């Protein structure tokens, strides 16, 4: 069974996973974890970015010198100081899931494809440097945009529209209004 699934089977199973996440814990969301990973790294260099203090009642409180990390009683600072939390472990597990799926049942990613996707190679050539820069730039835009929006494909689009959140629909509108023309212009064939 070295193939991907058809659309109906895919839709049923993907939908079931999103539902399972809400039923067991909370809606799936990924892009926040990029901030947590950043904060985990940079708070080692600058401890002011994530501080834990214990108040007179013995409760731990969290704060940061950065306005964003300090939001909602320092929830981002808290997560980065307690890195083995649900959201971050979830993302590590996604990596392992992708690994397992490609090994067990597939589809496997061929060697050439694993460096540069076919559609990029056909349109923009087989320069690895060019793809590296392109992938880096696309990651930059995606995560900057996702943080400004407060979520990404998983949190806003899938989990959001599943709950009929207004934010999910407007995020999807913003994404596709730009992503469709960009893709059509960049990739001619």
């Amino acid at each position, binding site marked *: 069974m070295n193939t991907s699934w058809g659309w109906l089977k895919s839709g049923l199973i993907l939908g079931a996973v999103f539902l399972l996440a809400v039923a067991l814990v909370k809606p799936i969301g990924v892009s926040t974890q990029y901030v947590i990973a950043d904060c985990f790294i940079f708070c080692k260099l600058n401890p002011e970015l994530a501080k834990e203090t214990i108040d007179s009642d013995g409760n731990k409180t969290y704060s940061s010198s950065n306005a964003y990390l300090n939001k909602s009683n320092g929830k981002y600072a808290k997560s980065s100081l307690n890195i083995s939390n649900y959201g971050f472990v979830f*993302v590590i597990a996604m990596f392992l899931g992708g690994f397992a*799926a490609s090994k067990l049942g597939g589809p496997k990613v061929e060697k050439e494809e694993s460096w540069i996707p076919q*559609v990029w190679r056909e349109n923009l050539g087989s320069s690895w440097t060019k793809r590296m820069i392109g992938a880096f730039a696309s990651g930059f835009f995606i995560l*900057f*945009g996702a943080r400004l929006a407060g979520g990404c494909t998983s949190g806003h689009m899938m989990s959001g529209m599943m709950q*009929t959140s*207004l934010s999910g629909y407007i995020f999807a509108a913003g994404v596709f209004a730009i992503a469709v023309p960009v893709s059509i212009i960049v990739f001619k064939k």
Partner: protein
Amino acid sequence: MNYTNIILALVVGGVFGAVLHKVGATNPNKIVGFLRLTDLHLAKVILFAIGFSSLLLFILMAINAIPTSHIHVKSAYVGVIVGGAIFGIGFGLGGYCPGTTIAALGSGRKDSLFMILGGLVGAWVYVLMYGWLQENLDWLYSEIAGGKVSLAVTGNESVPALINSVNGAVVAGIIAILFMAGAYMLPNKLRN
């Protein structure tokens, strides 16, 4: 540390990563095909998944099988659209999302590592700019239609519904059926 939560994270995250790979979402060729409208496989998958999960979610909440406290609706504000558009530039160019790129790295795609690195930098630049943006471009943060709202009544009192005169399961059910019907009727491609 709460071990139950860690185990749940490993199980649900692991299954999610594996499923993203099996449905084709870790493959930038499939994402670009969807965005170029030449291969709508993923569009059909996503539409159906949203409709199907939404229908079951609202039914299960109506019979109290899922607590409405699990509802987490994000706020709607101008930055959601602007951020979505900026996201769209990278999405259309790279063919990855923040989550699919992580499962893609697991599946052996090396370019996704650079997408993740770019993502870490992009997210950090936003963190550093946040204070300045709030002061100088405060319109980005002005709420739309009340901000943290849903269309259908969820039963979670912290989330007001825009359509609050009709039963939430009915509203969500109609939207869900439209999504699933859309998935079914969408052709395999709109362009060649």
